[in-house]
């Protein structure tokens, strides 16, 4: 792995031992932000002063002999749809441009307790709706590996922040692939946890039954380090899994002989023109590499997986149409006046939302409306059950499944201006969101223009320790 920047694991080791100060680490990252973020535009807000103050506190803890936490001194960037008390949280939307939350998301509290240092809030497709970060109301983010190309999305700012060395780790949210796809396009590890493994409290909702927070990292080890901090039950989230979750660090580096790996035919891209050939090849190579490492690799078929995209584009917009109703100009956010309350709400929403958000709100409103519910939303929720059943059946015989993460490497700005073409980008990632199962994207090989390709490892509910184990094995053998 081409390691330009220090890993979080190294930073924690240095800071906790006092070999290097957290202030020094944070200053180095802030300096890179100051130099390069003008071009990259990974951040909506940089919290430099708060970061330095927090880093100084960590150093004091170390100096006084206290335990500074498992992420001591690690500079971290948060997708700007996670609430931070006193720091504006915008969702890259004009409607929340000036909004300052009075409370912290659960993940923000967990990171603070673990000694991480938040350096800023990152750009995204407005309300996380998109796959390129071109839908931000504040302008797109550029891919640090090729600034003429997108970083992917919707968590493009968080991916770019790590890839550019602005933060050692970052958090994104994944509703249909919004962590895994930008991780693939920026050459990073990206994790979509089991639904309910990480608290959604304080994550501004896009589609509540699909949204999950997860990390971006340079290495599988770094991702595992932060994953253990994020995961766990939260009484403030009713959908949070109650049972204890095993550490993903335990099996990291354990051999994978005898592990049963399925290659999902429907998601492989074989014979599909929409897939870049190098991507299809990289996934096949990854399967081959796992086999060489002792795994038992076979092709499997999950017929309902092909319905993922259509089911997703009914369910996610339906939930979004309801979740985004609250932006009405009454209690927070943008207000455009009108002669009566309804007119004020209309004017505020019309001025505050961008086109992609409006498109999805209208689509979802339609899918839920009288006379259409059963054919669209209702049917999609049943397909979802079918997918869960089919995947569960496959997991009776396989430990993990494998597929490409994204059909292509990072593409140029404006290349996918047609909404449907853009939607197709999520075809491999969407099934895990619909089933609630976890998935990890790991860099594996290079494609067009020497840009990184990601392959995805899928597993059943709460199989994260196994996914991290396989991801680490793949990372070991990945071509570099």
């Amino acid at each position: 792995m081409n390691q330009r920047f220090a890993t979080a694991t190294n930073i924690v080791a240095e800071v906790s031992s006092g070999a290097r100060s957290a202030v020094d680490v944070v200053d180095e990252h802030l300096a890179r932000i100051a130099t390069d973020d003008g071009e990259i535009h990974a951040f909506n807000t940089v919290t430099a002063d708060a970061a330095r103050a927090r880093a100084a506190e960590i150093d004091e803890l170390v100096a006084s002999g206290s335990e500074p936490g498992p992420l001591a001194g690690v500079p971290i960037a948060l997708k700007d749809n996670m609430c931070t008390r006193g720091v504006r949280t915008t969702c890259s939307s004009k409607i929340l441009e000036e909004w300052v939350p009075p409370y912290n998301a659960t993940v923000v509290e967990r990171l603070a307790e673990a000694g991480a240092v938040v350096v800023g809030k990152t750009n995204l497709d407005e309300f996380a709706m998109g796959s390129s970060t071109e839908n931000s109301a504040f302008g797109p983010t550029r891919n640090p590996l090729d600034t003429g190309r997108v970083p992917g999305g919707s968590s493009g700012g968080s991916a770019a922040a790590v890839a550019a060395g602005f933060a050692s780790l970052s958090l994104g949210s994944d509703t249909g692939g919004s962590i895994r796809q930008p991780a693939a396009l920026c050459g990073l590890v990206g994790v979509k946890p089991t639904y309910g493994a990480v608290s959604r409290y304080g994550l501004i909702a896009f589609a509540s039954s699909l949204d999950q927070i997860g990390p971006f990292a340079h290495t599988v080890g770094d991702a595992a380090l932060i994953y253990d901090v994020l995961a766990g039950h939260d009484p403030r989230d009713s959908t949070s899994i109650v049972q204890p979750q095993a550490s993903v660090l335990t099996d990291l580096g354990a051999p994978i002989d005898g592990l049963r790996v399925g290659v999902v035919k429907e998601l492989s891209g074989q014979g599909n023109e929409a897939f870049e050939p190098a991507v299809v090849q990289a996934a096949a190579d990854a399967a081959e590499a796992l086999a060489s490492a002792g795994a038992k690799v076979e092709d499997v078929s999950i017929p309902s997986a092909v319905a993922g995209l259509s089911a997703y584009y009914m369910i996610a917009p339906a939930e979004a149409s309801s979740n985004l109703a609250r932006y009405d100009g009454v209690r927070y956010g943008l207000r455009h006046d009108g002669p009566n309350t309804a007119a004020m709400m209309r004017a505020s929403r019309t001025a505050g939302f961008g086109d992609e958000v409006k498109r999805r709100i209208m689509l979802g409103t339609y899918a839920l409306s009288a006379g259409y519910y059963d054919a669209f939303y209702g049917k999609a929720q049943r397909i979802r059950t079918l997918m869960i059943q089919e995947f569960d059946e496959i997991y009776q015989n396989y430990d993990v499944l494998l597929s490409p993460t994204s059909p292509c490497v990072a593409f140029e700005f404006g290349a996918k201006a047609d909404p449907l073409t853009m939607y197709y980008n999520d075809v491999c990632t969407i099934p895990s969101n619909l089933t609630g199962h976890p998935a990890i994207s790991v860099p594996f090989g290079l494609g067009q223009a020497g840009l990184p390709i990601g392959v995805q490892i899928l597993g059943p509910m709460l199989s994260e320790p196994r996914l991290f184990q396989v991801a680490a094995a793949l990372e070991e053998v990945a071509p570099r």
Partner: protein
Amino acid sequence: MPEPREPLTTDDVAKVANLAMLDLSDDELVTFTSQLDAVLDLAGELNQFDVAEVAPTAHPFGLTNVFRPDEPEPDDIADAIREEALAAGPEVEDHQYRVPPALGEAL
């Protein structure tokens, strides 16, 4: 067999925009109508599957009975949050959110 679907009309979209409290220009109405119609075509794929006997998913892992105890948050936290929340209001008067008058709504 997939049933043929009537194409979406600008009237349909105007109605949906109205329900969603969005105003669209005439041009936007036309563009959105064709874009949304294309996405609805995608939904046709759902008809390949017979799911009449399959229950809809409520929670992927069947979680039920999640409750919290009936205990109030400490007053000092509640007070601080109230002040910060009100500070974010676009228009606040006497600790209340001010809005233009409702129309056609008798309370």
